[in-house]
Structures are given as C-alpha cells and as structure tokens.
C-alpha cells in the first residue's frame, strides 16, 4: 500500500462556515489534522467518510474513487472501505464486545478481508473482554474495542476523530501506547483529528494545520513544529520533534545515546524502566524552553548535549522573549530545533539568521 496516497479536494458550505481543502496525504503513517475547535477538522473527516452528503469535490483513496461530484460519483459510507473511530466509543449497547467486533467484519465482502475479526484483539489487548457488554467496560476499554471494531473491516483508511478527547488523563495514558503500537503495525493510512499537542508529538508523521476551514500548512511533523511562521512553534508547548535511532546504552550513568538522522548524537537519561533495544527508531521531543544558546563552545558545562547549530530564523514570542529556530543537522540533512531566549540575550549575542553557535540542550524526552 505504500506509494499510494489519499487525494482529497472538497468543499462543504454551511450557513456559517465553509470547508475548502485540497490535500494529498501519504499512503501510510498517521496524518494528524490539527487546529482550534471550529477549524473544520471533524468536518474534513466526515467528508472523507461520506457522512456529509452536501460536500462537493473529489476523494480518491488507494486508487479508488470514493467521490467525484463532477462525474456524479458519491459512494455512500457503507461502500467505502474505511474505519471510523468516533470521539465517544459509540459501541452498540445491544451487542457484546464480540458482537460489536463481528458487526463490521460480517458485512465486509470476503475478498476484501485481509484478516480475521480477531485481528485487533492482541493489537489492543482486549481479548479478555469478548463476552462483556459495553456498559461493563471502562472508557478506555470501550475506545479500544471501538478501534478494534473499525480494524475488523479491513479498511483501506482509518479515520479517528479525537479518540482520546472524552477520556481522563489516566485513560489517555492507558490508550496512547496502544495507538503508538498500532502506528508501527498497521498497513493502512490513518487520518487522526486532535487538538492535543501531546498527541501530535507522539503520533503524527504528517501534520495538517487547519484554520477556518482552510489548510494553513501541511508537512512532516518535524518540519511544521519548528516553523516560526506557524502558531505551533509558539506558546509554552513550543518544541521540536526529532527522529532518532537508539544507540549504546551507558548503564553506569543511566544514560542512552541516540543518533539523529543527520548523525549527531544526543544523550538521554534512562528514565523508563524498559528502554528500547539499540537501533530502534524513536522520536524525541526537545522543548524550546530547554534549549539555551552560547556563541563559544562551552567547555566546562554540566549540560550533556551541546551541539553546533546554525540560526535559521527568529521571531518575537511573548513579552521579552524571542524564539530562535536552529539547524543542528548537517547541510544535506537538516534537523531543526527551537530555543526560547530572552530578548535581551538575543540582542547582546546579536542573534541573526546564518549565525553559527552552540545549542545547549538541557532536556530531551523520548516520546515514543
């Protein structure tokens, strides 16, 4: 399925709001639709699913035309090979967990089935719940069953509409690891709607920023999170996501080395009980507030991660603060991080694009 993609060029006019998006999303991985409430994220998902019959335009998924208004093509939802996970789990109360899982599976044409209805049981850890009724499940369990139910139809596209928004923090923490695992094991693209920055940093591969029904920006998560012209790179949660491979572990010092795509090394405290094996692909988060700048190589510093960097841009960010975009990669392989410093420091150090300096990274957190 790699190589294929998802084309979406649609318009949906409502009384007070118009959604107009033209997107090509990758044929694998998780594409996150991110934006404030009312930005059109959920509408976009509903249009993809065929739940908005007033939407006009074209939708092509995995080479199959789901909608082409000019040609008069509009596949109804039940003919689209998709899985939809709603904000509330919406399990069928009149069926057991097994009945819920079989509901979609039984209605999937045999030649479209890629796996048994039990496929999602292990992926989501719900094998022991089969005979339960929805009202006997916790919120987190319900949502996991809903995800497995969607997967049981062998969809070509999985749509998830803020699947964690209705859950409390503990339940979120319970489900997120399952979602991260899914990410590695699913053979279909996922379009995921959220307004949580945490979910973006942990799950997104591709990011689409929606605002007022329009696409404000789209790109890889590493790129979009560090673009100073976008609101994502501002505010307290500003920070970069970097992809890295785990390297040598240093058990004596409770540290682990990470190698970024560009070859730079970062040292990470071994906070988790079970650290990933060497050479595992992980993603790390570097918050803008955890990066400070120095014009000279700090020879005697307690900071473990000091990297040569080039300033690529700077923008004012809140009272007296400046946000600096830095490239800590190499010419052919950029890796961007952000640093938040005081306006005074920026002036004293004469920070400007092109300046080469040292970034001291005080905190690196593995998010996946």
């Amino acid at each position, binding site marked *: 399925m790699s190589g294929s993609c998802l084309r979406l060029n649609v318009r949906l006019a409502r009384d007070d709001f118009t959604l107009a998006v033209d997107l090509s999303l990758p044929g694998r991985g998780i594409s996150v639709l991110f934006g404030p409430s009312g930005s059109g994220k959920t509408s976009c998902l509903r249009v993809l699913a065929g739940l908005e019959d007033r939407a006009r335009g074209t939708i092509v998924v995995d080479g199959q035309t789901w909608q082409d208004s000019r040609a008069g093509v509009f596949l109804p*939802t*039940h003919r689209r090979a998709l899985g939809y996970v709603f904000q509330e789990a*919406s399990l069928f*109360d*009149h069926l057991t967990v097994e009945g819920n899982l079989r509901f*979609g599976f039984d209605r999937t044409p045999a030649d479209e089935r890629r796996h048994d209805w039990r496929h999602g049981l292990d992926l989501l850890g719900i094998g022991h719940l089969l005979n339960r009724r929805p*009202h006997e499940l916790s919120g987190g369990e319900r949502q996991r069953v809903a995800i497995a*139910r969607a997967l049981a*139809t062998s969809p070509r596209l999985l749509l998830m509409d803020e699947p964690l928004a209705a859950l409390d923090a503990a339940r979120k923490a319970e489900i997120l690891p399952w979602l991260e695992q899914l990410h590695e094991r699913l053979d279909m693209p996922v379009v995921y709607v959220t307004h949580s920055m945490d979910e973006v940093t942990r799950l997104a591969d591709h990011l689409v920023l929606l605002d007022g029904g329009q696409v404000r920006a789209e790109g890889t998560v590493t790129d979009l999170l560090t673009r100073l012209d976008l609101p994502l790179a501002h505010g307290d949660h500003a920070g970069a996501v970097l992809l890295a491979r785990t390297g040598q572990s240093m058990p004596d010092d409770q540290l682990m080395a990470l190698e970024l795509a560009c070859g730079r090394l970062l040292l990470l405290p071994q906070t988790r009980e079970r650290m990933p094996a060497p050479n595992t692909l992980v993603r790390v988060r570097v918050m803008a507030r955890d990066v400070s700048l120095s014009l000279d190589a700090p020879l005697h510093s307690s900071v473990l991660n000091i990297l040569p960097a080039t300033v690529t841009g700077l923008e004012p960010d809140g009272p007296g603060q400046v946000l600096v975009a830095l490239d800590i990669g190499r010419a052919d392989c950029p890796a961007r991080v952000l640093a938040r410093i005081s306006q005074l420091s920026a002036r004293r150090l004469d920070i400007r694009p092109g300046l080469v300096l040292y970034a001291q990274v005080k905190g690196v957190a593995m998010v996946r």
Partner: protein
Amino acid sequence: MLLTPDNIQALWLTARVAALTTLILLLLGTPLAWWLARSRAWVARPVGALVSLPLVLPPSVLGFYLLVALGPNGPLGQPMQALGLPTLPFTFAGLVVASVFYSLPFMVQPILNSMQALGERPLEVAASLRASPRDRFFHVVLPLCRPGIVTGCVMSFAHTVGEFGVVLMVGGNIPGVTRVVSVQIFDHVEALEYAEAHRLAAVMLVFAFAVLLGLQLYNARLARRTSA
C-alpha cells in the same frame, strides 16, 4: 364460577381485538415512526399531528367519523363495497380497524421517542461498518429501540382493551362480535347488575395495574443496565 359465560365471552373478544390491533399497529407503526423520525419533508409534520389526533379527540368524534367513512355510502365504505368487500361497521373487522386508528399514537409515540433519542451516531457507526440503510434499520435501529417498541405494544394493547366510545360508535353492542368488556360493564350497570359489573371491572383494574407495573419494572431494569 366468578364470571358468567357472557363475561368470559366479552373478555375473550376484548383480548382478540387488542392482540390483533397491537400486531397490526406494530407492523404499521414502526415504519411510520421511523419515517416521522427521519423525514425532513414538510408533509411529515401534518402526518405527525394526524397520528396524535386520537390523543385529544373525544372517542365519540373519532368513532363517528369512522362510522361515516366506513359506512356503505362513506368515502372508504363505497369503494370497498364496489370491490365486493363487506362493510365494516358493526363487525369484528370494523372494530379492529377502528381500534388501529384509536390506538395509533400509543404505538407510534414511544417508538418515535426512542428513535429520536437514538440520534445520528449509531447509524453513522453502522454505516462505517458497512451496513446498508436497510441493514441499519433492522440490526441497529430496531434492537436499540426495543424499549420503545415494548412500551408501544403494551400501551396499545392496554389502551385498546380500555376503549369504549369508539366501540359503541363503530361496533355497536353485538355479543361475541363487538361487545367488548367495557361495553359489557356498561350494560351490566344499565341493567343494575352491580355485582356482575363489579367483577368485570375488578378484572380490568387488576389487568391495567399489572400491565403498568410490568412496564415500570422493565424500564427500571433497563435503566439499571445502562447506567451501570
């Protein structure tokens, strides 16, 4: 013997009318409720009002119009006669037809309420799980609206058992054909047979209470199950 053969005959007739009426209403009222719940057409509003009409209309008014319409010269009776069908007034069939109209809101309202409470979401979920509109109706809407359907059946049955004015108008008072319990009680009272009237009335009272108690228990059990 507590009940005279006349009284037993009236009870048996009432049960048959009510059971047949309920069955017809179930088959008629469920799709009607679904259409009323889903239709955005203007015409659904007057139809909705029409369905509810027996709730507020005096039964004698309803019975009068049915008598006129179904009579040999009425707008319904005339074409029926032309087709060689019997005229309905003062027959068992006529009583059932009249009861269907009379109890229609008692079937449609509870089902309509549960269908409206269902909302869009279960249908959208079912559609995303490859269920066609028909499939969604039979395998999602009907099972999820079961409490409303059960309530509708119980209320229609009980309400039909309790009808009086419409029966007198359309059915008259023919033993074994149209003389239902309520009419029988009236006859007893007219004839000053208070003891007979009392026995039959008590049966009705106990029946009505038992039915409503059963419904209460059913709903309480459902509420406990969904709130757990």
